[in-house]
């Protein structure tokens, strides 16, 4: 599956099928700091993602000072 990441923007190819939480673990990312979006819909951590899916992993942390 094609996975889009931010900060910095990049795309990586990950072998599916795979659950959302397994995908995040493989990329060493914390669920609490990210949203996983398939197409334009949010998916939960137990959702099975297929090879053909287009996935965006969106970071949610922001803030300066």
């Amino acid at each position, binding site marked *: 599956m094609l996975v889009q990441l*931010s*900060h910095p923007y990049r795309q990586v190819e990950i072998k599916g099928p795979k659950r959302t939480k397994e995908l995040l673990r493989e990329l060493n990312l*914390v*669920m*609490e*700091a*990210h*949203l996983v*979006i398939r197409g*334009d*819909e*949010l*998916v*939960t*951590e*137990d*959702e099975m993602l297929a090879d053909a899916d287009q996935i965006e992993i*969106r*970071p*949610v*942390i*922001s*803030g*300066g*000072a």
Partner: protein
Amino acid sequence: MNCTKCPTSTRAVIGLPRHNAAFCKACFTTFVHEQVARAIKAFKMFTPEDRILVAVSGGKDSLALWHILLALGYRADALYVNLGIGAYSEESHRKVRHYADTVAASHGAKLLVHVVEQEAGAGIRELATILHRPTCSTCGTIKRYQFNRAAVEQDYDVMATGHNLDDEAARLLGNVLHWQDDYLDKQSPTLPASVEGFAKKVKPLCRLSEREIAAYAVVNRIDYIVEECPMAKGSKMILYKEVLNRLETESPGTKQRFYWGFLDKQTKPEASAESMAEKDQRTLVPCTACGQPTTAGTCSYCKMMAKAKTAAQPRA
């Protein structure tokens, strides 16, 4: 994972471990609105008659806040401060303008804009260099000043910012780590207009995590700037948030207990100034078995040992 609220168990779009819940789109939107309504009521932020000025940046928190207040029927205008950070400011300004034109205008809400460069003659990066100050600190001073000035000069009853649970927990962690007591007093979700010239300031998103607000924006198709401010890279606030998120992952509810617990202590001062020695003298008695101080008749050590001896005895 199915929605834990729907009777028909619709597919959930988000799981919330700290609430031991999962929600579909509709129930999640309702959950977010309820959390904001509870914060507004609990901290006496404003009433439906008040005119509210929302500080918007083009990010998820401030645009979601504006969206929620309008959805709940409040009279909320917004102010955007263009900081002059090149393409980042251009993009965030475009997002705010787009939201104002396509959504807020239909509620009768208007967008005010302040451009730093027009008044100061330079953007914040240049100002920070001239002043030998960190950019985030310069930015914070300018935004606080401009938002307060606009709220006071244009007769708004209250100014609302998009600070969320993660912002407040991270700020609290920073303040506690450095024992900045003066700043702790300013962490309440409602700050009164204490003196002439200060607007009342409120944080209606204080019960919601950063992830919940980002999810709300996605679910409600709010087009916000995902890109991080280039000036915030490597900031202490982001480090504190990362640390808290690791704790939250291991123990859901940590951020909420940390910040809400602090607010509880702030609003409910200690009943008495009893010292530890005075409390011990009032509550402790000699153990009936060994004589060491205990709150119970027999101390926990003696109870434990008695139980162990009983268990170790061979059965008849």
